[in-house]
């Protein structure tokens, strides 16, 4: 049985990995080598393709912008969404269900619907081509609120009630009791936001067009505009741009996979 299963899984795994392997091989070739027929499996080791990335793009700046955007959005969403989620899960306040319904309605709307007005807001604030333009609209997430609310609701109430009886106010209950309990949920959200922000293309492409203010995904896309089909350079660039998040994934694999699995838990 196990043998037959491996007989299916091994070729499938190869299909998953082969593109990455070919990407690495090509990234070390010259254009002439890459267009050789039949192809050579071993490249001549043209490391300049990687070096060229730093000449062609303000790669360091773009890396930093992407880190700032991903970290800023993640930290902001974890804090703001958990606050709102806690309130929706545990506190009583007027129009709670109506407001929650309004929050949820944002989830139903495709994000492209927000883009033109958001762009106008950024232009009016003079924020085009700025870090805050990358971060600010991404601080608020109906999805994050929803995910964490489900999580808070699944937590036992005893600890919280005991703290309340000890006279702790909502802020202390939230900060000292609920947040530590909700850690797995917060990590799940953080991992997802980090991943989505890093790989996000549409908004950064639209709002930051100055190469020094671009994110890696937009910078990489612009590289194609300049270099069309110089594949070795494109392969080196795409590897450099996607490597950081792949590295984080390898270290935090469990959290990533649990984070994704969380989105699938019906609620």
């Amino acid at each position, binding site marked *: 049985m196990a043998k037959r299963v491996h007989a299916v899984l091994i070729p499938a795994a190869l299909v998953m990995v082969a593109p990455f392997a070919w990407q690495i091989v090509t990234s070390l070739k010259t254009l002439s080598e890459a267009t050789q027929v039949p192809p050579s499996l071993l490249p001549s080791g043209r490391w300049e393709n990687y070096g060229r990335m730093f000449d062609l793009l303000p790669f360091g700046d773009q890396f930093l912008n992407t880190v700032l955007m991903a970290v800023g959005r993640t930290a902001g969403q974890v804090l703001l969404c958990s606050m709102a989620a806690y309130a929706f899960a545990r506190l009583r306040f007027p129009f709670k269900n109506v407001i929650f319904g309004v929050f949820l309605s944002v989830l139903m709307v495709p994000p492209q619907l927000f883009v033109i007005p958001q762009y106008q807001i950024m232009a009016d604030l003079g924020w085009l081509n700025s870090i805050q333009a990358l971060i600010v609209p991404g601080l608020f997430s109906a999805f994050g609120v929803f995910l964490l609310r489900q999580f808070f609701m699944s937590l036992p109430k005893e600890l919280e009630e005991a703290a309340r009886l000890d006279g702790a106010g909502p802020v202390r209950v939230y900060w000292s009791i609920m947040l530590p309990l909700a850690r797995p949920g917060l990590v799940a959200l953080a991992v997802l936001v980090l991943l989505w922000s890093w790989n996000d293309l549409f908004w950064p492409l639209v709002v930051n067009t100055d190469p020094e203010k671009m994110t890696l995904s937009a910078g990489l896309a612009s590289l194609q505009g300049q270099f069309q*089909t110089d594949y070795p350079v494109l392969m080196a660039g795409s590897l450099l741009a996607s490597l950081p998040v792949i590295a984080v994934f390898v270290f935090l694999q469990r959290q990533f996979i649990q984070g994704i699995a969380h989105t699938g838990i019906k609620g």
Partner: protein
Amino acid sequence: MRKWTRVGAGVFGAIVALSACSSGTGSGAGTQAPKEASGPVTLSYAVWDANQKPVMEELAAEFSKANPTVKVQVQLTPWADYWTKLKAAATGGAAPDVFWMNGPNFQLYASNGVIRPIEEQVDASVYPKPLVDLYTYQGKLYGLPKDMDTIGVWYNKTLFDAAGVPYPKDGWTWTDFQQAAAKLTDAGKGVYGTAAQLGSFQEYQYNTITQAGGYVISPDGRKSGYDDPKTIAGLKFWTDLITAKHSPDLKTMTDTTPLQLFEAGKIAMYWGGSWNVTEFSGNDYTKDKVDVAPLPKGEKQATIIHGVANVMSAKTAHPAEAWSFVKFLGSKQAADLLGKKGPIPAYTGTQGDWVGAHPEFKLQTFLDAVSYAAPFPVSKNTAAWNEAELTQLTKAWTGEVPVEQAAATLAATMNDLLAKE
């Protein structure tokens, strides 16, 4: 009432000046009221080419030496976003004082009153006439040409030698070109004589259309030329090469663009601009294998000429200073400096340094071409029919519809668009 307008203008001017030098150093200079022309003035100057930014800054410094009260701040916006950003700025009334303009966009800006016509009498005969015409709208000149580019045939000497084909000569014809393409094609090695690129009309279709005696747009800018049989002959020049398999088909050129095919030694003759010299002299493969020849003659000899011009914002707070800067940029002194480090200067007689920079290529070819150069086809809303050109002609390039039919559809679409202008 008048007082209020003046206060308003003053505040507005201050805002413009402030935003112009917001990232600069001397913020004190910017807060001066616009009317006080004697005080220090900062002009913003928008450009799109990162390679040319240093030269532009040098030119700005040179200008400030002669005009100590005027500082120029060079603002780089990359090509991909230049027009979007400029449009947004012009919409908000905050366009840069002086900026680069190109042919396809010029009439849109002129007809909407975004740029200021030149009022002083200038001697325009020092620039190629097609460029002066390109930046003239309703009889008024709006910009002074800064640089220029023409088209040539870049060819791979190694492939010519291998196929035993003599290098292209001055005065060669379409037939010579077609025969050379046939001989240079080696299907077994995946080598093609040439590549009938579709995505860049400036280097391809516009040239052959003119050479065939056709036209893209009527001189009054009202009518499309795509239904003219001679124009169609200019298009067929390329589609015939694809049919004969002396050029890769469109699918292949999409997967790997002609430029890369040329740089990988798969294309023997590549139609390219004078600007390609930077690319080909820097590329490891092409730097010692290629050279350049004039475009072959059809019914007549022709190349498309284009060039960037410096224009002034209609709403600049410093019209006098902006004009003196534009005038300086259009001078021989500026052209001499530009020719050493940038593209071909437009000012006649200043191009020697540019040619001398790369003795390995026959760059004089591009200058000789000026004598038979044709203007870049434009209208008020060039972008609209540029999109139609691609959409319709793609079908002819793939062979999905005959060239005549695609051209007829294109002419009809283009005429509709022109009628709306």
